[in-house]
């Protein structure tokens, strides 16, 4: 007795999601650590991807009582080839005792594999944002696609009265009236002709009766034609609007970093997060983003990303060299009419002391007028002359932001001012 075949394919997808959330929550520590490592290893552009997370097997085991090695046990195996009763066999190395018993839940002889699973892009970004202590508003802003613009998209037959298109509605109504009344009108015409042929008066009884009949019929048809509504609800047409992403422009993001001896790996890592975050913000608003990496010690140099983060140099520091190079590159490749220019600079604040004043000058006079935004983070505590010079800038220039950062969670405030009003507008 078959009750029925039920198609469940559309119902109850992802039933296990709650369990997955609980799992991730439980291993948050490990997952977060793995995300951190992944961020360090990845290029700025590939940040928005999932990631494989490994957790050592012993960490996720669920303990139960079970038999351990030792004692005496007898196990039956299939496929005997050569043994006869009473044979003695070398004990296999590493325990196990000739294969595992069928009752054993796990084979303790096996090595400790890692438990590996894939973190989706969304989960990965969630963890990344957690690390940066992004406020919820910003998260949604980052998680969504950029600004939408509403745009006309033909007509629809539902909508608000405000969007009523009178012309369209009336045109539809005419068509309907013509179509519905066509037969009646044709008949009316022919009846009228017949009536006219009969003449208005005179004739015998039969003609009189015929005239009467025709007149009645004409009355009926008229009434029917009059009953056709002038405007019917089905005629109504509304202007339809759809949301489309705002057509986006091009942007270039300059990453400037000090690679002198005093910038150690931890500081570079911090700087990298800062760059990533800016990049993420920009990807929400621009379709095409160029990245330019400029590293400097006493001289500045344009390099690729790999060299930017991982090469290490020593020597003194002349910050202005990087700013000058940035300006040169802008002039050579990124005409300000076509590109939105963003600058992000990270440094430990160490600078040759005569140079800081010059930095400020270059910024105010040449760079800041060209830039949509310029952010500076200092990944060290003590305030040196570069900080002081920049601090003077902050008051006068609204699109310049600076911040001291010693932990990843402090990076976000740098952007707060930038995104406070209504996001970067292209």
């Amino acid at each position, binding site marked *: 007795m078959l009750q029925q075949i039920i198609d469940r394919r559309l119902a109850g997808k992802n039933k296990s999601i709650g369990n997955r959330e609980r799992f991730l929550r439980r291993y948050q520590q490990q997952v977060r650590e793995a995300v951190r490592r992944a961020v360090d290893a990845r290029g700025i552009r590939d940040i928005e991807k999932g990631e494989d997370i490994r957790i050592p097997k012993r960490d996720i085991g669920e303990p139960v009582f079970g038999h351990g090695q030792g004692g005496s046990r007898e196990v039956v195996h299939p496929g005997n080839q050569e043994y006869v009763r009473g044979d003695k066999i070398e004990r296999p190395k590493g325990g196990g005792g000739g294969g595992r*018993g069928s009752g054993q839940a796990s084979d303790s002889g096996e090595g400790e594999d890692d438990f590996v699973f894939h973190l989706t892009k969304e989960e990965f970004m969630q963890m990344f944002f957690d690390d940066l202590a992004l406020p919820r508003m910003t998260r949604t802003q980052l998680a969504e696609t950029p600004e939408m613009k509403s745009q006309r998209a033909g007509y629809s037959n539902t909508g608000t009265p405000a969007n009523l298109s009178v012309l369209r509605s009336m045109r539809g109504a005419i068509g309907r009236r013509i179509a519905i009344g066509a037969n009646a009108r044709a008949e009316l015409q022919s009846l009228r002709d017949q009536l006219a042929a009969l003449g208005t008066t005179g004739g015998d009884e039969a003609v009189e009766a015929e005239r009467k009949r025709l007149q009645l019929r004409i009355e009926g048809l008229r009434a029917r034609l009059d009953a056709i509504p002038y405007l019917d609800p089905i005629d109504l047409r509304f202007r339809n609007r759809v949301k489309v992403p705002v057509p986006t422009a091009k942007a270039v993001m300059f990453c400037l970093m000090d690679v002198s001896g005093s910038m150690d790996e931890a500081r570079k890592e911090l700087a990298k997060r800062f760059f990533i975050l800016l990049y993420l913000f920009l990807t929400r608003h621009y379709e095409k983003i160029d990245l330019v990496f400029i590293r400097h010690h006493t001289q500045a140099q344009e390099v690729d990303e790999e060299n930017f983060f991982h090469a290490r140099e020593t020597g003194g520091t002349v910050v202005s060299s990087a700013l000058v190079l940035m300006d040169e590159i802008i002039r050579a490749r990124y005409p300000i009419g076509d590109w939105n220019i963003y600058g992000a600079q990270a440094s430990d604040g160490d600078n040759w002391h005569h140079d800081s004043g010059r930095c400020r000058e270059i910024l105010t006079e040449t760079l800041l007028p060209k830039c949509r935004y310029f952010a500076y983070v200092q990944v060290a505590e003590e305030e040196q002359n570069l900080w002081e010079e920049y601090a003077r800038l902050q008051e006068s220039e609204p699109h310049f932001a600076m911040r001291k950062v010693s932990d990843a969670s402090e990076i976000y405030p740098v952007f707060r001012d930038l995104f406070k009003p209504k996001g970067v507008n292209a």
Partner: protein
Amino acid sequence: MNPMERPAEAGPARPPTTFDRARPARFTLEEPLPAGPRPDAPLPDPSDWTFELVEQYHEVIRAAAKRFGLETYPNQLEVITAEQMMDAYASVGMPVNYRHWSFGKEFIANERSYRRGQMGLAYEIVINSDPCISYLMEENTTAMQALVIAHAAYGHNSFFKGNYLFRLWTDASSIIDYLLYARNYIAECEERYGMQTVEDLLDSCHALQNYGVDRYRRPGKISLAEERARSAERQAYAQMQVNDIWRTLPRRPEKSEESAVEKRFPGEPQENILYFFEKNAPLLEPWQREIVRIVRKVAQYFYPQRQTQVMNEGWATFWHHHLLNTLYDEGHLSDGVMIEVLKSHTNVIYQPPVGHRAYSGINPYALGFAMYTDIKRICEKPTDEDREWFPELAGTPWLPALHEAMRNFKDESFIGQYLSPKLIRDFRLFSILDDEAEEHLLVSSIHDTSGYRHVREALSRQYDLSTREPDIQVWNVNLRGDRSLTLRHTQHRNRPLNETAEEVLKHVARLWGFGVNLESVDGAGEVTMRWQVPAPAQP
């Protein structure tokens, strides 16, 4: 029920009692019923199935199953996707279950190996419920759907309905309701007491899951509504009772001095540790007791399945094989369908020999299928050896014999009863004795005349749950001192506990609320190992 109170005449209106449930009506069909008329053409066999086709196949399989006397719960076939199949995997094969991270872990592990192609999904999952739900995976071909229907909807289903352990221990009609109740209850607790708290408690309960099973008493049969009403009542009452064992007023001062020293609490060792906690753990809140109870109930529900792997899979495999072959012989199935079925069948019953890369113990499908097939052979074409070993089977009608072998055994007794010398030879079974005291492993018996009985006994023991899991019971509670609990492990053939014992003990301590000891006692009654876990810090 006391028979004295209710005269036998009241018979027909009497509700079923334990006795009735455990002992089904005798199987009366001696021979398979005759086949219907031969069809003009076999059923169509495009590789893509349709609902009509599944229904047609189901109809012929149903008719065939009826001829062989397979009694089943009503069938409910559900079509699901691969992803849903993994969902079902993750919640131990049930359509609903409460939420826990370990199910998430399971899902992730399955998904990963599935995506990498390391693991094929099972073609079917079948749920011991009334109606019996069988999942058909969307990706299956028509032939595979036929195989699944025969295997799950008629094989497993009739096993659930017929086998004594399932009749005794599980209640097919209420399990889905109960799990729904459990899910909601636990979700409510999470909301009220915090996810972490509930998770910790569930972790501890899961660690003891295998020790939350009644082995000798039948649990009550309860519907969802009753369950809700009773749970509230139970909690109030239980909380009142707990304090009773800590009663400080001495009842008989003059006697208590000596007797308290000797008298243990509980009076008898308790093997259902979770039940003991549910009733006696002093610090648990009522909702915590209810969660302990839920885990215990679910464990109890799966208890028969853990004891009938070989029989259950063997029975289902035997019947899909037999039903589909019969249908093929009678012209219902096309050659193409049959070849695909046989290919899949052959894969399922493959038994790699020991030492083979794919070897991981005895394949329950292979062993079970071989045993049922062998019983049929013994009935129909007994050899002299069979007449000697199975005088009660040889030459009798095979159908009742087979049903008898399905109904009244569990793996352990089934193998002990029915494993024939021929099968031992076919599988080339041999037993290896691994004694810690000896330098070498010893081949204790092989497939020869002197070894048959020994191999059979050893294999039967291998499927005995009580030897597969360490025997650990609640031994004593220190009522007059620090309230610490003592568990006692009775070693089976001097086998020690594994290294996670201490971890489990921490979970025990969390449930008990005070310190916990575990002693391991060898065959001579000497305590050889002790573990101790102090009382958990109070939150």
